[in-house]
């Protein structure tokens, strides 16, 4: 007991500076790009105040950093208690969008006004879902009466995520955020349990369903050119049609994608130079927001685009590392959720910008303009740092970093355990 107490004291002293520096770099770079992309439209919209968006983003980033440090210093055990509340509060905030507190901008009601600040509750819901899913996984796996490959397990783990996704879709009519929330929950499910073929089956079924729908659209409308049939299948289908051929729908849903491609293509290898984008001058809608990656590629070229992707790889690697070295299962799931969130959002964003995926509004984490997004992403990073700081480590991460051998040994040990586990499993059945 005394030993345990001593261990805990030691744990609090660790701080993942590498992660912090990568984060700060991404944030700083994001601010530069937000200024570059928004100064023109800001000076048009706000009487020559080109700093408008930058200022707002800077304030949000500061709040986010404060939140991050605050969250990272909380006692780790609190999270287990906090999880259901976090989820509950986030869902209530989401529902408030439909209340008089709801705030409409750009034709979409996605914000709530509290004390002079507008917040996008969908961003909070992401944290809530990560926490509650991790909580449920731990709860279910500690119970012997539930098989963690059964549909029952799958359903319970996914339930809060699917509920939240449904609410987001219903309340804010924001499909992309709903998909991300669902994706986070599903990723955590897969991470949580070994050989969960039923989960994979669900994934494959969903993909086949989407694939068939896209194929149907491709064959009925794109091939035949029968635009009239569009009214029957709904407006979202037009985005998919625009995805097949953005030039054909350049007047409508294909416009943004096409402009985005123009931006990337015209940048070349080294770009036009920082601040010299032409697409940001009113041609590319949401240049400082969802489409910021296109402007990065235009101004800094492929080089800049790759650099950003590499930074995200580093960030994800650091998160993976923390997850790898954490012995605490709950902490592990939390970090895994954050990992899934950032990975999904980066990949989706770049896919949209490069027209690999139909156009939908997904922002680039830490870089795109958007106060709620950056504040709550940083809060999530605070949780990751908290795990790195307090959760039960098999081996001190400092030691691991210095001697790769120890780490390899550790992995070997784990593999051995898995073999053992497998044997035991077969014995049981």
């Amino acid at each position, binding site marked *: 007991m005394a030993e345990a107490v001593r261990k805990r004291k030691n744990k609090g002293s660790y701080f993942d500076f590498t992660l912090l520096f990568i984060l700060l770099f991404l944030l700083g770079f994001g601010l530069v790009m937000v200024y570059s992309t928004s100064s023109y439209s800001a000076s048009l919209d706000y009487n020559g105040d080109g700093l408008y968006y930058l200022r707002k983003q800077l304030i949000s980033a500061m709040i986010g950093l404060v939140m991050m440090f605050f969250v990272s210093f909380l006692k780790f055990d609190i999270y287990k208690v906090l999880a259901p509340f976090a989820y509950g509060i986030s869902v209530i905030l989401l529902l408030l969008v439909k209340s008089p507190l709801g705030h409409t901008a750009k034709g979409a009601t996605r914000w709530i006004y509290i004390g002079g600040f507008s917040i996008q509750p969908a961003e909070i819901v992401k944290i809530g879902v990560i926490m509650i899913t991790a909580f449920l996984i731990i709860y279910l796996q500690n119970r012997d009466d539930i098989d963690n490959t059964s549909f029952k397990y799958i359903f319970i783990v996914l339930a809060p995520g699917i509920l939240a996704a449904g609410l987001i879709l219903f309340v804010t009519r924001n499909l992309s955020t709903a998909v991300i929330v669902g994706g986070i929950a599903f990723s955590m499910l897969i991470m949580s349990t070994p050989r969960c073929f039923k989960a994979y089956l669900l994934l494959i079924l969903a993909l086949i369903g989407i694939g068939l729908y896209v194929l149907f659209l491709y064959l009925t409308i794109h091939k035949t050119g029968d635009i009239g049939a569009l009214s029957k299948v709904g407006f979202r289908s037009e985005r998919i049609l625009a995805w097949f051929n953005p030039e054909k729908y350049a007047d409508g849903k294909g416009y943004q994608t096409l402009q985005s491609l123009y931006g990337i293509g015209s940048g070349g290898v080294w770009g036009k130079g920082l601040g*010299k984008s032409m697409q940001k001058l009113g041609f590319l809608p949401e240049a400082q927001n969802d489409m910021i990656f296109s402007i990065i590629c235009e101004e800094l070229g492929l080089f800049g*685009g790759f650099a950003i992707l590499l930074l995200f*790889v580093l960030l994800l690697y650091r998160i993976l590392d923390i997850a790898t070295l954490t*012995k605490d299962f709950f902490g*592990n799931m939390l970090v895994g959720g954050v*990992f899934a969130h950032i990975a999904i959002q980066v990949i989706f964003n770049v896919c949209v910008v490069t027209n690999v995926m139909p156009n939908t509004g997904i922002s680039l984490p830490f870089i795109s303009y958007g106060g709620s997004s950056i504040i709550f992403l940083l809060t999530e990073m605070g949780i990751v740092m908290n795990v790195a700081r307090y959760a039960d480590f098999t081996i001190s991460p400092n030691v691991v970093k210095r001697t790769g051998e120890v780490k390899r040994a550790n992995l070997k040990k784990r593999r051995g355990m898995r073999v053992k586990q497998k044997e035991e499993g077969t014995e049981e059945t």
Partner: protein
Amino acid sequence: MEQNRNKRNLKGSAQDVAIRLGVFFFIVLLAFVGLSVRLIFITKDNDTEYQQRILSQQAFDSKTLNAKRGEIIDANGTVLAASKETYNVILDAKQLIDADTDINGNYDPKCKTATLNALESIFSIDKGELNAYIESVPSSQYYIVKRNVSFDEMSRFLPYITKPKKGEEETSLYDEHVCGVWFEKYYTRFYPQGPLACDLIGFSLSTGQASYGLEEYYNDILTGVSGRQYGYLSDDSVVEVTTVPAVDGNTLVTTIDANLQMMVEKHLKEFALEYKDNAREGFGANNIGCIVLKADSGEILAMASYPNFDLNDPKNISEYYTEEQIKQMEEEDTLKDAYDALWKNFCITDSYEPGSVMKPFTVAMGLESGRVTGNETYMCNGFLEVAGHKIHCHNTAGDGLLDVKGAVAKSCNVALMKMSSAIGKDIFLDYQSEFNLGLKTNIDLAGETRTDSLVFTDATLNESELATASFGQGFNVSMIQMAAGYAALVNGGYYYEPHVVSKILSPSGSVVKNIEPRMVKQIVSSKTSDMIVDYCNAVVTDGTGWRAKPAGYAIGGKTGTAETLPRGNGEYVVSFISHAPADNPEIICYVVIDRPNVSVQEDAKYATIVSREILTDILPYLNIPMTEAVSDKEREELLQRELSIYTNRVAMEDASGNEVNEEAKENEQ
């Protein structure tokens, strides 16, 4: 402890999660690699193409700034032609639809309703029609809702789209839902005096294009240079909007006196209406023209012809043709000819045989060459046989014995034929070109005719032609040629190039160019000139032009009656050219009536009467002192005329301030 651990591993553990996370990470890496490849391909395949597309989009940002066309004003500053700002109301349907559609594609026509209501209340457009258009072409970004909207009307719409200042929110009409409407500024030409001097001024219906008259001749000077506005990226990567401002056109100050012009036009129209449908269907003459110019500078004071047209609406010919006729002309494709006939300036574009107005020129040739001394006498028996042809005098009974002065005064053809045979072919041809007959006078108006193929050459001038040429038959001239030549004959012999514009002013009002009278040459000596003046005075005192004498003034002049081709069908061009005052000519007034609408056209009195009417008005107006006694009746008439001039002038001043020339029109009718 170990047991417990194994159980947890079975259920899934941190270590297990780490492995699956590793797989996850690997998948993410693969996705990133895939996206990188995608990025490379986008860049590699489309580098230059996309760059050009972006540049071509940027080009949309540049636009032309229209220059304001310069004004045309008369010698006293009365505006004859001006340009005013007008606007087209443009609707961007796509912007409206986009504003009404939220991110998820829900459509709520708030903006459309608000915008259509605002448009309806200000521009009184048909809301339903516009709505139908928006629904049928939702992608349209340029639809002209209304053309030719004045600045005032346009600015009444601005409150809808201008954010109110603090404290004015409540009274403001501002509605954030009104969008997709913008105004396209351009200049339209308008002519405050309506039909006044229409042939002389010409008209400009669209930017940079002008037809007829001063507008066409001085088009480059009036048009100005259009500017350009374009955006580019500066070194600081800010969009710099560079404006090359439009340079407005220059203003023309003409020598025309609008009052004088109005008097002249009034009398031409009076004649045209007085003899309307008299001997045949139609106006008082096919064409009536009048030029008033200064004898010693060639400055045109008035130049008019009838029929005329409203410069603000040149295509409106309903005054002269019935609807059926217009329809018929459209079918026969002759509408253009009708327009041409109406729009051309009779005084400079039409050529005709001058008739006896030529006689002073012939006499001047004789005097100047010495072949005629002025002391000769000629016997007229009513005809002369030249080269086997019997050529009649207009007085077939014969004028008897005449001296040179009498020959001019009585307009005796026989005496002139005898003079021309004395002058001879070579001298006649020399002086024909010396007097500029058949050549352009280079007056600064578009469409001046050149009649060099219609005057005599060495090959065409035979004996009988020489005889008829002496009294102005057999060759063609234009009114301006005769007027300019006659001015030289009576002003001491100095030939001035006739001109209309005296000054070119910059848009700010400073003088760009002064156009001084241009003396080209001396065509006769001052002695000859004096004799011609003396002879021509006799035309009015003792000869054919007696009807032309205006009350209170002594004038000189020469009548003309020329038979048109083909000969013998009784069609004549009658004319009277006059100078005033008689002893020291300052003003030349030349009236030509092309085939007067009377049963016997061969009578110059029609021209002399119109001349008298005009001169009676304009000489007092020009403050030329009266030298002759005025009878009570004449005094009464003069008073009446003066009064009507004042009322006309008031009407004109009113009209110049207004776009529509209603009052002036009423006064004319």
